[in-house]
């Protein structure tokens, strides 16, 4: 892979599939590492996408993780067929979670997923329709924006 070209792809995610949960983010992390992107940026991107992937696995029926890597940034869009989020502001609060107990017993559902995605990205957008699904977009910059 060449770092000066765009790289894009997608992963299909299946809700409730905890056996493969995180596999997409793991593969994306390998792709980013192979592109010689700095470990700090790879780590931030991996954490943001992993949290997004887990949200789909935990809450949705299915979803798609799309990624685009350019010389300037990493863009990841997670689009799911899930219950949607009635109150996004509340969902963004650290510690707020609607995950069931059996998910918490596996170590998830601490209410840090969306805040973690925001923390580890340079741009964060979320859009949700109750009964239809949620779309989350994160951008992690590879090169600093030089414009004033």
């Amino acid at each position, binding site marked *: 892979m060449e770092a000066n070209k765009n790289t894009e792809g997608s992963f299909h995610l299946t809700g409730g599939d*905890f*056996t493969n*949960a*995180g*596999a997409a*983010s*793991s593969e994306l*992390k390998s792709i980013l590492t192979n592109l010689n992107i700095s*470990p700090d940026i790879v*780590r931030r991107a*991996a*954490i943001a996408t*992993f*949290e997004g992937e*887990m949200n789909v696995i935990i809450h949705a029926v299915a979803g798609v993780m799309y990624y685009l890597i350019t010389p300037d940034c990493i863009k990841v869009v997670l689009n799911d067929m899930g219950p949607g989020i009635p109150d996004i502001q509340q969902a963004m609060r650290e510690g707020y979670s609607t995950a069931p107990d059996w998910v918490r017993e*596996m*170590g*998830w559902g*601490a*209410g*840090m*997923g969306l*805040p*973690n995605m925001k*923390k580890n990205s340079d741009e964060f957008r979320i859009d949700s329709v109750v009964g239809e699904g949620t779309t989350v977009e994160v951008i992690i910059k590879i090169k600093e924006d030089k414009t004033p």
Partner: protein
Amino acid sequence: MTLGKVTEILEGEVVLNTGDMETEIPSACSTDLMSDLLHFSSRPKSLLITGLNNTQVIRTAEIADIKAVVFVLDKRPDREAVEMARQKGITLIVTRLSRFTACGRLYAGGLGSCTGENR
């Protein structure tokens, strides 16, 4: 602190050695909440001390750049978790100690927090 020293202090058993036990561990974190690990662990190549032994722990450790995982209370990772750790280069150590005691011993031995908190 080296991984070898960690094992000695915890009277641990190395169930998977993916490299040199002389590898230096810069810091440690202890949690059973995977998102807390992702949120608060700011230093790569750290040590995770946990009471969970499922594959999710290994996957999260990989994403958070964790170098080694200590399982407390003699909780042993299953074959699937060990195989995943082998592929990801994560060393696995089991100790009979509780999480509290394990953390206390490592802290007393000089290992700091992966959150960067002052000792």
